[in-house]
């Protein structure tokens, strides 16, 4: 596939239009589909298709630049128009339920991509729906112009964290009580999706009518507001600074201290290290919530600090 166009859609968000280099028609897709993108450095990342499923010759994806990412978003942003990349055929784990009388679409941040595609599909077939799109600020809101000028603009509600209170997202009001044949779709950061789905369940929604995109749902760090902090080695007293875009393991390695790692994302527990002082900010999936709450050990491959300094048993 060739990158035909690259557009800055918002702060840190670029869209990429992918076409066949020979101009061939592409495999068709349905709203909610994604593709695997094989990046030049060997990483594979999933991105939702954001264009109208009636387009037969292009796929549109949008990528958030995440400074703390494991390379996927940085690698994508480094690509330029004319570059070629390998992708999979579209797959759909997030399909629209066909029998719905009404649909509630909720997007958080970059989670707009499959939701936008769903909105356009529903608008095209004349189905009833409401779109709620939550972002941190107007300049971080990709595709806002496309939504405002759409035929469904009256059903689209944009919510900004930094905006006036009357436009803030009221999840309970937006979701409402469950009704037969009304389906809810949500895509966004894991915490956002969990919050939306939790709110819906509290309101009595059955899981059968709640839909979420899954591939984004991996419990790794959301890095936007990560700060720097220090770790101190209990053995030598040495203090090492951990930069906002650096893991503790990487900072230790740069200072010549090697910690055994395997998965580098908080799954396996290989790097588990005792914490003697300070409060870790746990980002792993290895420790149980009770173990995390004890704050006496953490996984330095992905976890960070809530206090300015952690003293480690190293």
């Amino acid at each position, binding site marked *: 596939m060739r990158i035909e166009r690259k557009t800055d859609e918002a702060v840190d968000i670029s869209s990429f239009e992918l076409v066949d280099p020979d101009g061939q028609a592409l495999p068709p897709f349905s709203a909610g589909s994604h593709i695997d993108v094989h990046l030049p450095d060997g990483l594979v990342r999933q991105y939702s298709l954001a264009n109208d499923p009636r387009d037969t010759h292009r796929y549109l994806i949008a990528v958030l630049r995440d400074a703390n990412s494991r390379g996927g978003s940085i690698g994508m942003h480094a690509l330029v128009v004319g570059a070629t990349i390998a992708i999979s055929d579209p*797959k759909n*784990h997030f399909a629209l339920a*066909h029998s719905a009388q009404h649909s509630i679409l909720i997007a958080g941040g970059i989670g707009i991509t499959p939701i936008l595609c769903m909105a356009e599909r529903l608008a095209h077939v004349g189905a009833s729906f409401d779109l709620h799109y939550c972002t941190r600020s107007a300049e971080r809101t990709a595709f806002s112009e496309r939504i405002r000028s759409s035929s469904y603009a009256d059903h689209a509600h944009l919510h900004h964290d930094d905006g006036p209170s009357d436009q803030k997202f009221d999840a309970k009001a937006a979701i409402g009580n469950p009704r037969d044949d009304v389906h809810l779709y949500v895509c966004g950061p894991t915490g956002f999706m969990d919050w939306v789905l939790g709110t819906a369940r509290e309101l009595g929604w059955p899981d*059968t009518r709640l839909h979420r995109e899954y591939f984004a749902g*991996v419990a790794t760090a959301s890095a936007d507001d990560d700060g720097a902090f220090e770790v101190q080695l209990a053995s030598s007293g040495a203090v090492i600074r951990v930069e906002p875009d650096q893991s503790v393991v990487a900072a230790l390695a740069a200072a010549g201290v090697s910690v055994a790692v395997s998965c580098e994302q908080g799954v*396996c527990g290989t790097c588990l*290290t005792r914490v003697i002082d300070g409060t870790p900010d746990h980002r792993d999936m290895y420790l149980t919530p009770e173990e995390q709450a004890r704050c006496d050990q953490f996984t330095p491959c992905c976890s960070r600090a809530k206090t300015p300094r952690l003293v480690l048993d190293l």
Partner: protein
Amino acid sequence: MNPETQAAGYSTRSPGPFGGPVQANYPRNCWWAAARSSDIGDKPYGCTMLDTPVVLYRRASDSQLVALHDRCAHRWAPLSAGWVEGDRIVCGYHGFAYEAGGKCVRIPTQDSVPAKACVRPYPVRERYGMVWVWLGDASLADATEPAAELAFITDPAWTVVTGETPLEANYMMLKENVLDLTHFGYVHRHSIKVMDWDRPPKVEVGDTTVTYVQEFPSAPLAFIYGVPTGIGMERTVYRKNWGRFLTPSINLGAVEIRDPSPAPGARAEFRFNVVHLTTPISPTRTRYWWFQGWDIQLPGEYVAKWQPGVEAGYAEDKAILNEVQRIVSLDAAGCDYPEILAQADQAAIQARRKLQALLDAERQGAAR
């Protein structure tokens, strides 16, 4: 320095099968499957489980099962090479006879029997068509029962196929294999053809169990699901796969299927159950019994094709697991680089943690 962090590789903290000398990573305080009930007739049945020779036989008076250490107190011949005489088992070497409690009651060449002439008896149960043996602290056996989740195996409302696939691999390799079905698209790409496991599942950790859950909200079914349900392979339905590390001896699996628009009068919901029973013979050999069942009355001609298809699928697991064990065993001194784990291994990692907790508890109990 934290010794855990310093450990080379992964295995020193993990009861998993990778890296380091292959160890006996199996707790003895557990109901382990020893045989099928139908295996035990009027002859003794010998097997090795958890490095321990065990003989099973039925008492003639009441058909009750007896499990004993399969080693005559006299010259250590396996009692399973002898025969059953009434309620007793007789050694085929010099005719020493033992009663069900393991006490020797006859030495043919003398009148007296030494007080210490006995073999260890083990608690034994028959449930769900299987024989279960408890090799650990017998005083703990009555506190647990072989899992009720297996009741579907003998429920006439279900259609069940079963078989045994012996493995030349550590039992946890099989258990970890069935906790990560992202291998479907590779190991079983030509057979099971369930190709949509392309992301890691959600993992839920209980007190002693680990469960993965993967939902496929709207996807077509592979033939192994589409044919028995009658839904076919064209329409898209809701499907939830989950699997559970239940005990060291039992893993469960299930597929819940919901058809959003069934034909008039047709069923909308179906349930498919899988059970994996693993019993280590030794650290690198495993007995493995599997069961698959649908809550559907399936015709004989379907079962006739289903059974060999399932056997072929497990033969594919066996082939890869045996090869993995062969490679792991070559590096018995300890890998010089660690096993690398991925997001999809989360359930397996958490299962290793549950297993480690059981092993630790058993060690502490033994030390008291």
